[in-house]
């Protein structure tokens, strides 16, 4: 199962990944059109800094996912085959339980569209869009390490 890893030494905090992520998840898929959409597409990834280092934060698709436990609408489910937490927007009622329990605060509420914003690993594409967007190659897409 492929997961996202980050080489922190290489991350400049330029937010190219955030922008690419927003555009990729917009309705139009294009920057200038995306800016005018009814629901502004929010990035599934956020760069945060601590002690002068930059850390991309996004959903880790935990196996013992707290968000799945907390989801009282069964909209979040851990898919063992795909190795990811999948989300059914038709079931979600926007209660934000998932936001409350995410141990990384990697889920944010989109208050306008009532959708929890979280990384879906760009499931319809060959690989997450943030990988190519990163100018320094800090984002790594590789098989899950065995110790996890």
């Amino acid at each position, binding site marked *: 199962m492929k997961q996202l890893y980050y*080489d922190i030494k290489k991350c400049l905090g330029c937010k190219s990944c955030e922008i690419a992520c927003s555009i990729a998840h917009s309705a139009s898929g294009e920057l200038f059109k995306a800016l005018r959409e009814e629901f502004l597409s929010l990035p599934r990834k956020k760069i945060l800094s601590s002690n002068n280092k930059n850390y991309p934060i996004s959903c880790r698709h935990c196996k013992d996912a707290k968000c799945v436990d907390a989801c009282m609408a069964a909209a979040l489910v851990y898919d063992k085959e795909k190795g990811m937490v999948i989300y059914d927007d038709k079931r979600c009622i926007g209660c934000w339980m998932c936001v409350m*329990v995410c141990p990384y605060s990697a889920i944010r509420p989109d208050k306008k569209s009532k959708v929890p914003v979280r990384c879906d690993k760009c499931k319809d594409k060959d690989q997450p869009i943030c990988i190519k967007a990163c100018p320094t190659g800090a984002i790594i897409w590789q098989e899950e390490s065995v110790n996890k």
Partner: protein
Amino acid sequence: MKQYVVIGNSAAGIAAVEAIRQADKESKITVVSDEDYSSYCRCLISYYLAGDIKEEKISYRPQNFYKENNIELLLNKKVTRVDPKKNRVVMADKSQLGYDSLLIATGASSKFPELKGIKKEGVFGFRTLKDAKDIAGLLPVVKSACVLGGGLIGLKAAYALKKRNIDVKVIIKSGQVLSQVLDLEAAQLVQKRLEENGIEVILGQDVAEIISDEGEIKAVKLDSGKALGVSLVVVGKGVSPNIDLIKDTAIKVNEGIISNNNLQTSVPNIYAAGDVAETFDITLSEFSVNALWPLAVEQGRIAGANMAGGNLNYEGSLGMNSLEFFGLPTVSLGLFRPKNPEGFEEIRMMDENSQIYKKLILKNNFLVGAVLAGNINNSGLFLRLIREKIEVSSFKEKLLQENFGYPDIMGLVKDKEQVYV
């Protein structure tokens, strides 16, 4: 081959049978429920009543769940008695079921205050899908309703009724909405939002009597003497654990069934999880009933795994609520209002223009509670700081800042960091 019996078919019961099946593919599992329906999302009944979701979206597991997992489901069966000496449960219809390992996940029931007229037709609790359906059935002939109690259940019922164009008054004995969940500041933001959306909130008043005529509700009389004309009453005065079935047994019970750090009761082959269980609350440092969906799932899963021979430790419960009314998200964690404020420290911010309020409660530089309204980002981190008992002095100033995040606590959490290389 063992026989597992699980009483209750909601969050804790389902999580338990999933965990049992994962560890034990062979043994017999029987789930007993006194309700009419296959598993459903109990917390969604207000959205169903409001018309936000259809009945098929309220199911919690697919139709074939029980068959696929080889689970026997007995619906409409009420367990009236547990007999730990003979390892069996007795149903209302006198039938019996033996077990090797038993989970009591019977949940809780709506509390009805002792009040003249409370037993009349047209007075409802708001706990089950049946409640929601019964209320929905009456709505074509209802113009105005009142909700007794300003807790989460009461307010969710009020929201649903308002959404169906019913005039709603919420009558609250205390001086604020959600007094069991929020402090006054956050409660006032929620109340404002409710009132802006047409829900009338009456504080500091209680209902003295429900007045009916020829079987139909006509009014409620407040203790001030004033009468309000309504034709439907929903009672949201809290819930109490369903513990009747263990009366006169050796199973230790207080408000709920005492469930230890293995989710075991005082009888070793009987477990208790979910809203019926009284577990150790890590923020109160005492046993307490925390009837909350995420906790029920967690407890059910651990209880199930342990019933099937595992040895998982339950680290304890705490209050945690996430609610949203008319676009105002609100989260409450742990000790949001300590009984005795001495020794506690508060960090707070209020931005009235954007309707954002945040308060953190600390003791000796450990986070013990939080209230967030309007902006609930980072609530998961606050919950983690409370649960993992992480000392915050090195980043205390940053806690309520926009740029606070996981990197600030990364080196202090229990799990080893995996994704940063």
